[in-house]
């Protein structure tokens, strides 16, 4: 019996090839999208859970409110780890990580620029479950100048040789490290990724007792089942006991007095498992995920599946009512309801299983592309997941049965007489249901189109935003400090090049990864005027090279020896200091070390505010001071012949330094790098928007086919009576267009609301223009029209003699 059903089912699918293909394809796309998103979400949710102690690990964080500004760091003071371990018995283990900037290493006569380096405490590999494949996890990092590296880094440095015991030179700091152990690699779902772990014992500041400098990421291991909130509740004591005295010493105010002025200082705990999706700190170890995107993509996955499932059901019902006559005849001939239900269900399940197979192939096909976009390494490993295959099959079965139920029961319940008389071909209630579905699908499509457009608008806004400095044709030559005293010589040589407008030495860049330094200063040496500021160490050419404009005063000049304590501040700093007039010559006290010693600077100039941080943030107070901090050379070119300039630069560089590679970037590219996340979101949203629209169109196409088929007789009659082609096409499309219009009306306010929220993330943002909605609406209507009109035209050009003959 089942074999017979199966044969009929296959024959039916084959007979309606186009219909079956649309149906299978639409469902497969929905399923594939859903699977890809599920993989993405599963990966996002898996972050840091590879650690055996993940459930009981927390990170110590620092938050402070200073003159109304919130400071929050994922880092804490050097002594915090040991202190907490000693003072609180619930802290079972504590370990620290200190991120290092780029370092130039050399081995034998080869040099390597490495970016992913950190100092870690000796017990780091006992706290984190990163397996050591060679060497001893317990002792590897106990000594100074020892290092644990990844397999890949080892291969880079030493090729096939055994890395253990080899010595790497750190050219940036003139030290060397002995390799003591090898790790495979840090799992991709970790909130940090380093190739090289240097022993903390090699790092002097790690032993400093100061509590006011927060540079160390501190992880604590708590007892199993312990609620970290309990320990967190005790942290104010730590602040009181250790930070209080230091605040008193450096600011001249006790913690209580400090608090009275509305300021706040506190230590908090963040569960390890929350780091990836729930962090919002300045300067985290790497760009984290965002739980909101997990929700958004989850919603899209559910919507896609829902839409695809609904379309499937819809098309099956549509296809099935074509068979109303067949059902009627079968019933007259003695078929019972159960047979019919089974027949329809089997067909439906067969279709879903085919769709599922197609979906799995699609996922294999698109995953590499998706990984590239999302910066992930997702894989669909059917063999590795015992739940996956049965899960997917169950899923196919459920979708198939759900989608098949409606047509099965709908059709098999027809009274044969009514069917044969032709009085039940169009159920009004099912028409309403279908209309609702069209509205729903287009509602989502339109909302997505609006979202994508707004994301791109914001990206364009960012790109075109006047940031207050020149970023076009600005080249940054990195690691020029390696040249030592030759750095200035190289700068002079570059200045002599006719293609170069200006050149400045500084490692503080307004765009992209940069040195950064922020600390509290006292305006007018008044403890009540403490302001958290960013500080840039620059040279005499910094302002002209970057085209930063002075509002009053002057640039640093070699003619004034006193400029070593001169200060150029931005307008935001003027406001933060509460100064209204006579700004030039005013004094600002800056801390020069962690012991609370201060130096007094005099303001010599004020620059216009420029965006030295991302547009997510409001421009904060910035202090520019002279400093012999060599780092990189910033070159402003006047030519479009950048390639020629680069060749010349390469020549110069090699003449100064043979063994270190020239590394350069462009300032405008660094600027856009900051918005990678938004760019990615833009890409991913466009893909999903495209897919949703595509699936919605498949649904619409199927519905149009169905409608056109049901109305062939009517169309024939109208043609005989003189209806023209446009008459008929508009007749067939009108209803659909009404639905799409309705979808627009629902989608607009919702999309507006959502995107407005998204834009709130940016302190500087575009406004959503009305034309975005019109565009999305017009696009949706156009797409719907094209989809529907194919069937409409096909029906309209059919010879009425034929259609009426078939009565």
């Amino acid at each position, binding site marked *: 019996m089942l074999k017979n059903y199966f044969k009929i089912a296959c024959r039916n699918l084959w007979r309606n090839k186009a219909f079956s293909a649309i149906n299978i394809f639409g469902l497969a796309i929905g399923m594939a999208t859903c699977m890809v998103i599920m993989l993405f979400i599963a990966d996002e949710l898996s972050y840091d859970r590879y650690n055996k102690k993940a459930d009981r690990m927390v990170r110590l964080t620092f938050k402070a409110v200073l003159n109304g500004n919130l400071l929050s760091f994922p880092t804490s003071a050097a002594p915090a780890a040991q202190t907490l371990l000693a003072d609180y018995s619930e802290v079972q283990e504590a370990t620290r990580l200190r991120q290092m900037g780029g370092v130039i290493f050399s081995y034998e006569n080869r040099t390597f620029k490495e970016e992913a380096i950190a100092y870690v405490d000796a017990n780091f590999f006992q706290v984190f479950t990163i397996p050591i494949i060679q060497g001893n996890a317990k002792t590897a990092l106990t000594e100074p100048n020892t290092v644990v590296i990844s397999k890949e880094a080892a291969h880079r440095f030493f090729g096939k040789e055994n890395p253990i015991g080899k010595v790497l030179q750190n050219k940036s700091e003139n030290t060397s490290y002995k390799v003591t152990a090898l790790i495979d690699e840090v799992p991709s779902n970790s909130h940090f990724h380093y190739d090289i772990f240097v022993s903390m014992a090699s790092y002097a500041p790690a032993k400093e007792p100061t509590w006011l400098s927060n540079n160390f990421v501190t992880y604590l291991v708590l007892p199993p089942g312990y609620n970290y909130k309990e320990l967190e509740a005790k942290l104010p004591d730590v602040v009181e006991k250790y930070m209080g005295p230091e605040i008193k010493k450096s600011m001249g105010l006790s913690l209580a007095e400090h608090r009275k002025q509305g300021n706040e200082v506190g230590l908090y705990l963040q569960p390890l498992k929350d780091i990836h999706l729930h962090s919002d700190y300045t300067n985290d170890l790497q760009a984290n995920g965002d739980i909101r995107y997990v929700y958004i993509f989850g919603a899209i996955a559910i919507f896609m599946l829902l839409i695809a499932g609904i379309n499937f059901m819809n098309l099956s019902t549509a296809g099935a009512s074509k068979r109303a006559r067949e059902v009627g005849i079968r019933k007259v001939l003695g078929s019972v309801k159960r047979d019919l239900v089974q027949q329809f269900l089997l067909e439906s399940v067969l279709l879903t299983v085919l769709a599922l197979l197609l979906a799995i192939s699609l996922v294999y096909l698109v995953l590499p592309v998706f990984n590239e976009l999302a910066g992930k390494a997702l894989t669909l490993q059917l063999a590795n997941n015992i739940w996956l295959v049965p899960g997917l099959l169950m899923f196919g079965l459920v979708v198939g049965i759900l989608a098949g139920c409606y047509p099965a029961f709908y059709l098999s319940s027809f009274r044969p007489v009514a069917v044969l008389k032709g*009085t039940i071909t169009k159920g009004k209630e099912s028409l309403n249901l279908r209309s609702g579905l069209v509205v729903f699908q287009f509602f989502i499509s339109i909302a997505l189109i609006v979202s994508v457009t707004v994301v791109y608008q914001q990206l364009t806004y960012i790109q075109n935003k006047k940031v207050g400095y020149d970023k076009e044709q600005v080249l940054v030559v990195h690691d020029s400090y390696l040249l030592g005293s030759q750095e200035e010589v190289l700068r002079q040589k570059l200045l002599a090049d006719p293609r170069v407008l200006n050149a400045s030495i500084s490692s503080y860049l307004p765009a992209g990864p940069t040195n950064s330094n922020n600390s509290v200063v006292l305006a007018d040496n008044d403890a009540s005027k403490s302001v958290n500021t960013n500080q840039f160490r620059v040279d005499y050419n910094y302002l002209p090279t970057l085209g930063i404009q002075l509002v009053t005063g002057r640039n640093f000049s070699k003619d004034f020896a006193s400029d070593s304590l001169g200060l150029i501040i931005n307008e935001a700093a003027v406001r933060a200091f509460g100064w209204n007039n006579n700004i030039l010559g005013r004094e600002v006290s800056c801390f020069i070390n962690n012991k609370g010693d201060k130096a007094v600077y005099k303001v010599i100039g004020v620059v216009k505010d420029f965006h030295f941080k991302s547009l997510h943030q409001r421009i904060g107070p910035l202090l520019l001071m002279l400093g012999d901090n060599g780092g990189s050379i910033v070159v402003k070119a006047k030519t479009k012949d950048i390639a020629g300039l680069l060749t010349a630069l390469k020549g110069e560089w090699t003449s100064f330094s043979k063994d270190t590679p020239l590394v350069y970037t462009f300032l405008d590219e660094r600027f856009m790098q900051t918005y990678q996340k938004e760019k990615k979101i833009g890409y991913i949203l466009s893909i999903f928007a495209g897919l949703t629209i595509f699936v919605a169109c498949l649904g619409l196409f199927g519905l149009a086919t169905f409608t056109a088929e049901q109305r062939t*007789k*009517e169309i*024939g*009659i*109208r*043609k*005989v*009576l*003189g*209806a*023209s082609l446009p*008459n008929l096409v508009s007749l067939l499309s009108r209803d659909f267009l009404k639905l799409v219009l309705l979808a627009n009306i629902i989608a607009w306010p919702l999309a507006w609301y959502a995107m407005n929220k998204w834009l709130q993330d940016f302190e500087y943002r575009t406004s959503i223009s009305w034309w975005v909605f019109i565009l999305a609406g017009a696009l949706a209507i156009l797409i719907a029209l094209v989809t529907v009109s194919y069937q409409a035209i096909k029906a309209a050009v059919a*010879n*009425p*003699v034929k259609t*009426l*003959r078939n*009565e």
Partner: protein
Amino acid sequence: MIKIENLEKVYRTEEVETKALNKVSLEVNEGEFVAIMGPSGCGKSTLLNILGLLDEPDGGSFKFLGTEIAKFNERNRADLRKRNIGFVFQSFNLIDELTVFENVELPLIYLGVGASERKEKVEKVLEKMQIMHRRNHFPQQLSGGQQQRVAVARAVINNPKLILADEPTGNLDSANGNEVMELLTELNEAGTTVIMVTHSEHDARYAHRVIRLLDGEVVMENVREQFTV
């Protein structure tokens, strides 16, 4: 009004080639009432569809109102059709979703007639067909005879010069059938040319002239006696 000579129509399906019309020649004058008869499958409907400009012949000449239209394209034929020809079918072919009024109104809409004029005309013709009281009913709520009266009303709404009827009484009992035949006769007397396909000798008697087809050829034309008197 209509003059066809050596008209041919061939249907080709995969392997078989059916000669539905084989060198048919005939002439119909303005004001005539002609019946076409013949066994099933002899090509009556095919001929009627060509006369009604719904289908193109494969060969021969077809003059309609003095113009050769055998080679007219679809658009021109459609235009000529909607101004000059009304159709009545065996299966009524009313649109189920539209009311009686809306069904009858349709040809006027496609001719671009204004709403108030349409209303006036439709009401007049419904009055004449005695189905005014059913104007807001849907076809399924009417009897077969009533439906065919609506179809006739729709066929005459734009005052066509020619009415083509394909077995208009085929789905009706004799009482209703006669009623429809009376209607067609009335229209003919008012000056409209009528060409009707029928299987019923009884109905054929309403016509002035009967053309008999067999296997796609005209085998006989006979003129009703009383007309020749």
